[in-house]
């Protein structure tokens, strides 16, 4: 690795070095406020460097790219991490979580996501994925006073370990088949491999299983609701957005780099996508815990995202990037609202605790309504344009059956999103008032809602950007 490559890696270096410095500082200095402020500025600095610094080389050590696509996601995950740390400020203090470790782990995880989104090699994918998964093992279980948190951490660890196993073995098979870790060559090798081709396909299949665990495709989704329910809410806000989004971004990059080898997997992916959407939506219906409900909602979203990938057209990929971005914004905002309502001991997660809350906290419940409608895909929010783009791409690519399954799933999804809205506004005010939230938390909500409405009314802004960064 030479100097130019190091310059191209600056955003990730800022995250990692900043995280290490804060970890050290946290060992000596226990005040949470400066540590969190430091974490937020490190994340913002990383985002800024990804935005402003034009990398001198396009690829780093044959593992990661520094194309505009990679920089876009590095910027996006850094901003998400910054927002996530902003909503963590009060949460960490009131629950006396160890601030130094918390902040540094979040930054390490962000570095992992940035690396994963820009991976151009199987090794790069593995490294990026493991980097943030390891950080999440600890983050999920970091609230030591909460049994559910420990349970969630253990579940994520076991599932994660299984997924890692699948991934490592899959990569080994792919290498055996194609003789390269580098993605374009590995994909071409798959198409060209003679007798070894079945093993190569098995390898890709195992890689897909590992990815399926991470972005919770059915039938690998079972950990999702438990982990979402148990983990500290700000951590979930990053888990639901960054960790899933980064894997999705890597998948999009993978599909963009070479379609040839994937045609054999089409029917498998079709089935995965259809199952994920339907099972996710049906499982969400009876949920009474809002975090579990959002967990299943994320399952449905990942299934819908897969439609865009399956199309393997430039429209489909652009639609997928749009979809991921919008999903992450709305999802982060929804968890931010739950966090802002949490006080030192409890947070409203059970729907019973949301009864009539629309009258006690009209602004935040109104904002949650907008964000949920965006997740559901209602115009004029960005969620509608995202869904529109995905269905457009799928009909264009002749996946009409899948589009119809998607329509059915989105109809079912509406029922459970509306359930939350109904509980907030159409019941008597029996739930006690929650924490009013701080100005910082409100500003995060304002950013998320503003973005959802802006990209809903003027989706051209985001589409143009995506059009210019897609490889």
């Amino acid at each position, binding site marked *: 690795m030479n100097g130019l490559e190091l310059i191209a890696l600056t955003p990730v270096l800022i995250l990692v070095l900043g995280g290490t410095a804060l970890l050290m500082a946290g060992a000596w200095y226990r005040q949470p406020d400066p540590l969190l402020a430091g974490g937020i500025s490190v994340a913002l600095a990383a985002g800024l460097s990804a935005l402003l610094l034009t990398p001198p080389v396009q690829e780093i050590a044959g593992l990661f790219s520094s194309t505009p696509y990679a920089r876009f996601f590095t910027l996006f995950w850094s901003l998400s991490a910054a927002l996530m740390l902003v909503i963590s400020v009060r949460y960490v203090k009131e629950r006396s979580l160890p601030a130094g470790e918390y902040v540094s782990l979040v930054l390490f995880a962000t570095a992992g996501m940035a690396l994963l989104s820009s991976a151009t090699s199987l090794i790069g994918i593995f490294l990026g994925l493991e980097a943030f998964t390891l950080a999440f093992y600890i983050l999920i279980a970091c609230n030591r006073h909460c049994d559910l948190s420990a349970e969630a951490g253990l579940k994520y660890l076991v599932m994660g370990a299984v997924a890692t196993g699948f991934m490592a073995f899959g990569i080994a098979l792919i290498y055996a088949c194609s003789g390269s870790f580098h993605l374009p060559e590995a994909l071409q090798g798959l198409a060209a491999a003679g007798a070894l081709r079945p093993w190569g396909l098995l390898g890709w299949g195992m890689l897909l299983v590992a990815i399926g665990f991470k972005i919770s495709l059915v039938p690998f989704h079972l950990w999702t609701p438990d982990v979402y329910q148990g983990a500290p809410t700000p951590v979930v806000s990053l888990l639901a957005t960054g960790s899933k989004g980064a894997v999705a971004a890597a998948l999009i990059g993978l599909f963009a780099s070479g379609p040839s080898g994937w045609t054999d997997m089409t029917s498998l992916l079709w089935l995965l996508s259809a199952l994920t959407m339907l099972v996710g939506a049906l499982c969400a219906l009876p949920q009474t815990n809002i975090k579990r409900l959002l967990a299943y909602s994320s399952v449905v979203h990942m299934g819908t995202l897969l439609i865009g990938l399956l199309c393997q057209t430039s429209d489909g990929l652009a639609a997928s990037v749009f979809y991921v971005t919008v999903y992450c914004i709305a999802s982060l905002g929804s968890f931010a609202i739950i966090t802002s309502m949490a006080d030192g001991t409890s947070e409203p997660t059970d729907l019973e605790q949301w009864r009539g809350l629309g009258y006690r906290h009209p602004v935040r419940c109104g904002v949650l309504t907008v964000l949920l409608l965006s997740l559901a895909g209602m115009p004029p929010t960005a969620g*509608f344009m995202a869904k529109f783009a995905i269905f*457009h791409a799928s009909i264009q690519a002749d996946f*009409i059956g899948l*589009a119809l399954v998607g329509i059915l799933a*989105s*109809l079912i999804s*509406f029922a459970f999103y*509306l359930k939350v809205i*109904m509980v907030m506004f159409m019941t008597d005010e029996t739930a006690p008032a929650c924490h009013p939230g701080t100005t910082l938390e409100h500003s995060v909500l304002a950013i998320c809602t503003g973005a959802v409405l802006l990209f809903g009314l003027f*989706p051209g802004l985001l589409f143009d950007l995506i059009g210019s960064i897609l490889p």
Partner: protein
Amino acid sequence: MAILPHIPWLTLLICLPLTGAMLCMLADERERTSHWLALATTAIIFVITIGLFISYGAGGAGWLLHEDAIWIDRYGIRYSLGMDGISLLLVLLTAFLHLIAVLASWPIERHAPRFLGLLLLLETGLMGIFLAIDLVLFYVFWEVMLIPMFLMIGIWGGEQRRQAALKFFLYALAGSLAMLVALIALYLLHGEQTGSYTFALAELMKTRLTLPQEILLFSGFMLAFAIKTPLVPFHTWLPDAHAESPASGAVDLTGLLLKTGVFGMIRIAFPLFPAATRFALPLLGILALTGLFHAAWGAYRQNDIKRLFAYSSISHVGLILLGLAAWQITAWEGSILLMLTNAIATGALFVLIAMIRQRTGTCQIDELSGLWGQAPNLSALFLLFALASLGLPGLANFAGEILVLIGTFQTHPVWASLAVVAVVFAAAYILRLVQGVIWGPISGTRITYDLTPREWLILVPMAILVIWLGLYPAPFLTPLHEPVQLLLGGSP
């Protein structure tokens, strides 16, 4: 013609209620302020639409007003609005009924600013539906309208409000999503043929489709419109939604929401798919007749006055659709006129039912009796609107009904003869209602006061309109002439 200065009137019609809605929501704590704000907004909009009606009431071919701009370049989606004679009348109706609805919602005390905000948001959606001529823009407004109605039924409705709201939303959404798939498919087919990808209605009409393709896409659009209209057998959501919604919500629901379905057929489904339309018209006619009878019978069996008029609306919509299915210019003009008159007459009845309920605490027919003895003015107006709804000559619905029947008779004499029988049915349930509620011995629930000045203010303009439309509907038929001729032009 050019009395009005050149400003983007159509955009104004959409933006004004939206602005009003936001201001109302912001004035959350000050109920009086929000009431006056909403009243001022709706009044300004009404004045603008009257200005438009005076300027463009003479009708004309093509768009009377047209606005166009690029919205989402990537997909060729445009922000284009157009107004012809049909949308002119419906925009006027929307503005009028919202003014009435704001006045009628004066007694709502619980969270009034939000209610008014939602009412104005609904007006935005409706104006957009009647004016949009880009299919995605139309779809956006079509969906936007669902949320305020859902919240209005669900928050301010009766006991079963939550179920009713959810049922309304999911029914409507199922139709909308089918339409979304159909419109994307049509867009792609058009793009492949011509190379220009656009959602503009006028361009998409030129797409060449095979009959199976047309029928498939037509069914996608028609599902959305038939559910909203509602055409039997997709009507089961309506009586619940009606019975549970608050008075001004119900005015909106019958007066306007149901009309969006019919309007969608006229503006979008029929012109886009002429061959499929020709194929489907007999089926539409039969379903419309079925609806006419089924709903009339349903209305006869109801004990709840709100439900009775919900069924009566379905029955009227059956007649409107029958007129459309006849595919004849007189029948079409009658159908569109009937849309207006039915909206006004039924709207007034819902306002009156709310007044009766406010005074007696009930709207069950068997609990009410002898209203005339206690509140003669209220009863007289109730009688007037009930008779108008029944189609008494000289009152609003008569003109529309007779045009529909004459027109239908020329193409389908059997349908017309059957429809006449159904009109007699209408007389049966209306007279049963009037007999039970207005006359008879004075019941246990005492009414202590007759109409208040605010209530007079709501009902008198409606009464004048009902009589005017019954005696001299010509000014409202003139702008329809050319657009209807244009729409009927190519097909059967």
